[in-house]
């Protein structure tokens, strides 16, 4: 090597390049520990557009996760430590773009694993997954089917965990007897409608009206809210509406003088909702996604590494941007890392086998691979899920509740409503 330089002349430019590289290596001793080839992970989610709030914050969380893991030595495979890096592709919640993105991530970037939000874009990606055998994850288990054995839902069992919020409400506020619901008419909204219907029925809460579906392009929610309030419900359920809808709906509920209980899957940026309504109006708002500075997350059963530190770091880098998915993709990476290290390889097949070999350490505790009845395949990791309430302007975990327990008691109701909305795995087109 040296003779090569000598024979060609060790130029000033070569010297500077070499010195810079050496200095960089010395300056990053911890990264240097993970000396192997970087393991690339694909991040295929909406980074722009209406659904970006459930993509971009997840990528931001993954960047923090990667820095932490690389600083701690990287991913320890059979041939030694490897740093991890993310390659992102903005699929804009569009199936065709998602398909292009998946192909590019696999063929050009050589990723070992691809994380997706899922939903409408998944049908575009599914043939790529089948053809290549690439390991994919989705946040939406309604994407699961026996057709794709390499698709996992390891972070959240949306929308099944919504049953925990309704059950908690029924037990803690038994005076609430009636409910209505609205949702956007799409792949995210409809399975959630079926789930909430099952949860309300199981809890003995009467639905006063059919769920009100609206076009995802809706911008003025006054008519929607007028309809919701027309029958004087005790509870108004916002289903799994995107934050672009939850905020104006909450504001309209405030302006149209609603005085009852609100329950929603998410309440991203709830501080902004409080600013547009009032602290008193938002008091007791129930949803399913905690802030990670919540002391309840320091319990022993919680597997997410240093949740409070992660939350603090996230808010330092992206102030005011914490949302439902900020931690979720990172928690999937925790599971993937454990499985890859167990397998000693980043090979998708080996990681999948290691991941499904026994119970998994879900962010909120030990969980089981589940889903045969609902999704046709046991590829959803399910366990406990938090019920969160806004109290005095701050999200507070009220309780962790078991999804499998609820399902063992009321699974038939869930299947009934999923079938009615055409959301069972064998009904989806």
């Amino acid at each position, binding site marked *: 090597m040296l003779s090569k330089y000598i024979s060609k002349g060790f130029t000033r430019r070569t010297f500077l390049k070499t010195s810079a590289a050496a200095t960089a290596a010395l300056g990053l001793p911890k990264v240097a520990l993970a000396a192997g080839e970087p393991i690339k992970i694909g991040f295929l989610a909406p980074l722009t557009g209406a659904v970006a709030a459930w993509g971009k914050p997840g990528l931001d969380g993954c960047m923090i996760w990667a820095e932490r893991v690389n600083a701690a030595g990287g991913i320890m495979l059979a041939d030694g430590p490897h740093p991890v890096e993310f390659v992102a592709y903005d699929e804009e919640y569009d199936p065709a773009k998602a398909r292009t993105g998946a192909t590019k991530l696999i063929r050009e970037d050589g990723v070992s694993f691809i994380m997706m939000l899922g939903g409408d874009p998944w049908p575009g990606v599914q043939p790529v997954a089948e053809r290549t055998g690439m390991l994919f994850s989705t946040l939406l288990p309604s994407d699961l089917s026996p057709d794709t054995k390499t698709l996992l839902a390891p972070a959240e069992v949306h929308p099944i965990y919504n049953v925990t919020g309704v059950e908690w409400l029924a037990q803690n506020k038994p005076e609430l007897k009636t409910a209505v619901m609205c949702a956007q008419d799409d792949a995210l909204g409809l399975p959630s409608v079926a789930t909430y219907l099952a949860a309300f029925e199981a809890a003995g809460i009467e639905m006063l009206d059919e769920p009100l579906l609206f076009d995802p392009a*809706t*911008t*003025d929610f006054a*008519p929607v809210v007028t*309809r919701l309030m027309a029958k004087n419900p005790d509870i108004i359920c916002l289903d799994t509406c995107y934050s672009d809808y939850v905020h104006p709906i909450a*504001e309209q509920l405030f302006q149209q*003088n609603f005085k009852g209980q609100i329950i929603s899957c998410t309440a991203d940026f709830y501080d*902004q909702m409080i600013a547009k309504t009032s602290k008193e109006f938002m008091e007791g708002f129930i949803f399913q996604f905690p802030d990670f500075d919540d002391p309840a997350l320091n319990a022993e059963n919680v597997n997410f590494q240093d949740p409070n530190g992660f939350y603090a770091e996230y808010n330092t880098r992206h102030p005011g941007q914490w949302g439902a998915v900020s931690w979720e993709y990172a928690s999937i990476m925790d599971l993937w890392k454990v499985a890859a290290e167990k397998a000693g390889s980043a090979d998708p097949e080996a990681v999948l086998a290691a991941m499904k070999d026994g119970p998994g350490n879900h962010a909120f505790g030990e969980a089981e691979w589940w889903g045969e009845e609902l999704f046709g395949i046991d590829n959803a990791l399910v366990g406990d899920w938090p019920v969160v309430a806004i109290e005095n302007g701050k999200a507070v975990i009220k309780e962790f509740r078991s999804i499998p327990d609820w399902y063992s008691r009321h699974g038939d109701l869930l299947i009934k409503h999923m079938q009615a909305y055409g959301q069972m795995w064998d009904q989806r087109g």
Partner: protein
Amino acid sequence: MMELLAQTGLNAVYAASYISLVAVGLVLIFGVMGVINFAHGELFMAGAYAVVALYADMHLPFFVAVPIGMIFVGVLGLVMERGLFRPLKGNPLGGLVASIGFLMILQALAVMGFGVRMEHIPPVTQEVWRISDKVGLPVARIYVIVAAVVLLSALWYFLKRTRFGWALRASAQDPEAAALQGISITQTARIAMFIGAALAGVAGALTAPLVSVNPHMGHSVIVTAFIVIIVGGVGSLEGAIIASVVYAFVHTFVTTFSDGVLADIVGLMLMLVVLIVKPTGLFGSADRA
């Protein structure tokens, strides 16, 4: 039931107000320039972001931010006229394609400047004009209604009672004859573009605190505006206003008494029925159809 009807009626009046501002601007641009401005929804979005920047970020008073936003979007219209539509004069397809390109540029600029997330805009006022416990109209919505009435009345006066307005209408009816009478077609196009864009901008600016402001918010607005101008008659300002009211009432009442998805279908059906029964639209002329 009466309360439900009353609240739904108030909701529809608000919807008719902002839709008519956008649709009239679109019609004015088409009427005078013969160009279908696909970027009109993004001009609405630009007005909303002007309020984000001036009111939410720089803390200027809302009623200072709105006129500045309106003028800013009007100037954007002038840029479009000079940079896109004038070089492509006589080429409506070229103008349409150029406006699609401009739409994408505006969206990209919004993403670069403000990010992809919806923007938080503090409420201008939380006061509600309440008729009863269950019927009320937020004051922020009343601002939109009042602004629509004032601006559209001013536009009517301008078009019917001023020399510039006559020139504008003459150019819209017969550009060659207007030019022979000494009317500058370029000047009238510039005025039409400024007014049309400013109307979209002020609609976006006024409604910004009431909707989710994001770089893609113009999409649904432009779809609604196209339905409205087809129903009203392409090129007819009166038609655009009346069609806005009809569409807003139909859509709002169907949403409230059935559901939002069906309301969209009914809105499209309304357009189809008008196209079948009267292809020129309710107030359109055969020349422009």
